[in-house]
């Protein structure tokens, strides 16, 4: 499929979906799914292709260029697939709510603009799609009203700040190199000084960092992810923030070139170390903060911030193994995090909007498929072997260890161990333990929710056992960046200092499991017991709330909580208050007394004349 046609299909499809919604709601839902199916098929058909297309020759005298190459391909495909899953998931989810046409329109617009971003071949089209994505996201985040309004506000203000900084960076690149087309910039940037490159990198880091939510630019993410409608939270967490990751890779590997990036500036104080440091902090702090959360979506949101830190570490480290790890982690995270948001969304849908972990429990009996999906998602998040998160994290750890950065590796590993704690909390509080009485009549998730969840769960497992599939594409993109590709096969990676071989692990685990299951079957048959038929130290089991979930990790959490203030958030809030106060102060200039106003005019005149008398400007 041609790139222009692809974009026309998705953007036209979004608008058409909106208009069709005025006629028939069902037809609209089907069309939305069809549009994304077409997009997925179209992108898939572009596999392995590298080509460019001119979208428009002169927008303000700049050509708008589209291009496809393996690196953009994997992002575009992930976007289309996760978007498709989220739209299918919306089928039932959104029906109860108002403004459904608007929801579908914005959802498709966000997805379309993201596809546009990854396919753009110059900074101007990149920026245009980027901004369309920003404002449509803003509208969708605010969709749930009440708390969501503040969340949307936080998002858009930071987003506008970020994109303005990017605009400055990009125009500055233009003045330096005379073009906005990526290839041209790369060609002409050789002569740029190291100081200038660092300046540009920092500008773009701010822009991409806000979207990617690296500390301390992350503050918009937790409220936005938790307040957005759940299908959109999947998109937000699964792919939208990864557009920032895309930007980082594009900038460091596609434009500045990694050899230049790694050797830039002072040996200790340089942009690479800054980014690595921020990546480490981004892993550590949000992981611990996630431990303290009692709202399912907010917990996942903080987890998303933390996981983004891994990608930053991988990308900024600058070896081909670390880039593979970072990119693969993007891909994996898109799958399992959107899956987890769907799981939480399904529970929220069936329980009429309950997200408070402490008031749920025992839902495994009512929603087994959702539970299984949640378990697989959480395993992927932790990186339990045989799920996809394992391989990507392994690559990141491995490159950090063999390249002599044990402290970064330590932070990354420790983050994973924190992940275990909050992941188990999520699963335990929602699905395990006692089923409260009020949920005894709960129905399982509707088919429209099960289908994407099952699909994504399968994907998490398949790519966990066969990491070679995505790694192959990533290798192609690394070759495109002029790097040494990783030695891979279908089952794993072979490096000089340690290999990973999923075939052995998978066989061992499956065979071991089967043997032990047979062994288990050999014992006496067991009887089923009800949840009220439990051991309670001799006392009768109280019905309904015989559950240990409030303050689940209490001694630990109350120990660490004092150190986990979100200082960045407090800082921005204080800044906003300060600006408001300054504004209120300045408004006093306009006193309402016309005498003062006349005085201002005279004073202005006087000052201008005074300037001449003193400095002789004329």
């Amino acid at each position, binding site marked *: 499929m041609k790139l222009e046609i692809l974009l026309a299909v998705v953007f036209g499809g979004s608008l058409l979906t909106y208009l069709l919604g005025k006629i028939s709601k069902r037809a609209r839902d089907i069309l939305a799914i069809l549009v994304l199916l077409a997009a997925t098929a179209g992108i898939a058909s572009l596999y392995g292709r590298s080509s460019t297309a001119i979208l428009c020759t002169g927008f303000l005298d700049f050509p708008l260029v589209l291009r496809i190459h393996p690196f953009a391909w994997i992002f575009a495909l992930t976007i289309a697939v996760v978007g498709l899953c989220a739209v299918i998931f919306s089928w039932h989810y959104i029906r109860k709510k108002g403004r459904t046409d608007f929801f579908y329109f914005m959802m498709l617009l966000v997805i379309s603009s993201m596809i546009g971003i990854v396919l753009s071949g110059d900074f101007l089209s990149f920026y245009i799609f980027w901004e369309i994505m920003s404002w449509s996201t803003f509208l969708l985040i605010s969709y749930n009203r009440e708390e969501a309004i503040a969340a949307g506000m936080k998002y858009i203000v930071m987003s506008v700040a970020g994109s303005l900084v990017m605009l400055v960076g990009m125009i500055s690149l233009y003045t330096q190199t005379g073009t906005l087309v990526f290839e041209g910039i790369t060609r002409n940037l050789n002569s740029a000084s190291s100081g200038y490159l660092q300046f540009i990198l920092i500008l773009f880091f701010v822009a991409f960092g806000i979207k990617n939510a690296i500390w301390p630019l992350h503050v918009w993410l937790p409220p936005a992810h938790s307040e957005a409608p759940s299908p959109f939270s999947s998109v937000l967490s699964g792919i939208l923030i990864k557009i920032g990751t895309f930007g980082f890779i594009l900038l460091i590997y596609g434009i500045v070139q990694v050899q230049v990036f790694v050797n830039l500036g002072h040996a200790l104080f340089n942009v690479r170390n800054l980014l690595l440091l921020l990546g480490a902090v981004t892993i550590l702090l949000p992981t611990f903060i996630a431990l303290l959360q009692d709202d399912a979506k907010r917990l996942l949101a903080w987890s998303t911030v933390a996981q983004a830190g891994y990608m930053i570490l991988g990308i900024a480290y600058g070896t081909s193994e670390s880039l593979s790890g970072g990119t693969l982690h993007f891909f994996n995270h898109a799958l399992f995090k959107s899956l987890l948001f769907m799981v939480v969304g399904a529970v929220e849908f069936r329980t009429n909007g309950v997200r408070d972990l402490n008031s749920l429990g025992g839902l495994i009996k009512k929603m087994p498929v959702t539970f299984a999906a949640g378990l697989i998602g959480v395993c992927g998040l932790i990186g339990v072997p045989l799920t996809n998160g394992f391989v990507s994290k*392994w690559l990141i750890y491995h490159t950090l260890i063999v390249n002599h950065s*044990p402290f970064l590796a330590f932070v990354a590993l420790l983050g994973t*161990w924190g992940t275990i704690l909050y992941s188990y909390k999520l699963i335990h509080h929602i699905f395990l333990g006692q089923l409260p009485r009020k949920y005894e009549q709960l129905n399982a998730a509707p088919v429209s929710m099960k289908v994407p969840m099952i699909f994504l769960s399968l994907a998490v497992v398949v790519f966990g056992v066969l990491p070679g599939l995505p790694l192959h594409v990533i290798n192609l993109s690394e070759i495109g960046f002029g790097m040494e590709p990783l030695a891979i096969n279908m089952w794993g990676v072979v490096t000089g200092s340690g290999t990973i071989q999923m075939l052995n692990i998978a066989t061992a*685990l499956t065979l071991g*499991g089967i043997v032990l299951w047979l062994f288990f079957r050999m014992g006496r048959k067991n009887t089923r017991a009800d949840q009220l038929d439990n051991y309670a130290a001799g006392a009768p089991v109280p019905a309904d709330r015989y559950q240990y979930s409030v303050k689940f990790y209490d*001694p630990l959490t109350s120990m660490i909580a004092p150190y986990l203030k979100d200082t960045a958030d407090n800082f921005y809030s204080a800044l906003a208050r300060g600006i408001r106060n300054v504004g209120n102060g300045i408004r006093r200039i306009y006193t309402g007394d016309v005498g003062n106003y006349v005085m201002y005019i005279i004073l202005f005149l006087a000052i201008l004349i005074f300037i001449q008398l003193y400095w002789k400007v004329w």
Partner: protein
Amino acid sequence: MVIVLVLQILFVTLLSCLVGLFLIGLSRKMTARIHWRYGPPLSQPFIDIVKWFSQTAVSHGKLFDAGMIFSLTGSVVVVLFLPFGGICPLRGSGGLLVILYLMLIAPLGIALSAGEAANPYASIGVSRKLQLAFGYELSLLMILLSLMTYYRTVSIVDIVEAQIQSGWSLVQLPLVVSGLAYLLIMPAIMGIRPFEMIQAPQEISSGPMAEYGGKFLAFATLQHALNIYIGLSLFVNLFLGGGSNAGYFLIKLLLAFMVFQVIHAVWPRFRIEQAVRCLWRWPALLAFIGLIIVWVTTS
């Protein structure tokens, strides 16, 4: 080739189960003797396993069963990744990092299974287990990283071979601080006193085990046995030079176990917050210093 591999796998699995169960029996015997009691016979754990298997058990659901199997599978697979003397069936599959991750499966399985039991005692036990793990992993991760940095590999087999050539890690100068830290956290890794609050029979009715009976208890005990073996084996392989053959390796294992057993017999139990504080203070500090020393000396 394949037959050798299968035989190795069977040998290592069975022997590690036997060793683990034997160590449980030994532990009870030693504790009893230190407490001036006679204690059960060394064969008692084996007898228990057979007995439990023939009893009717109570199950709380599919996950209750599956979690247990999952957990034991995890432990068995970890065993296959650890060198047993000169034998390591799955040497080329990812090394220490994979072991670290596979070691997650066992507690995760138990946690899921215990969660399905819908018993707060079980949940409390799991919560404590995870907190404790978070406590000692802080140090353990740094210790493992200092090893991996020092030997420049992530493969445990390579580490053992390097030690056979140049002596135990515990007595290598840059690694000695890390080794000390490891000694301090070993009781926590093995779940023995003073870090026994996960089970705490008198307090939370054996925690995660509260709802287990019959073959579930048998599986849980096997898993516990393997867990003890894994903890010790990791320590022996990483710091005591592993073993050039199985016998030598087992002797080291036994000696290390008896040292920690003495502590287990005479110490009281920490509360969970005391445990985490304790683990985050001295062992973590030592491990951190160890990592810095290794980092500086190797760069």
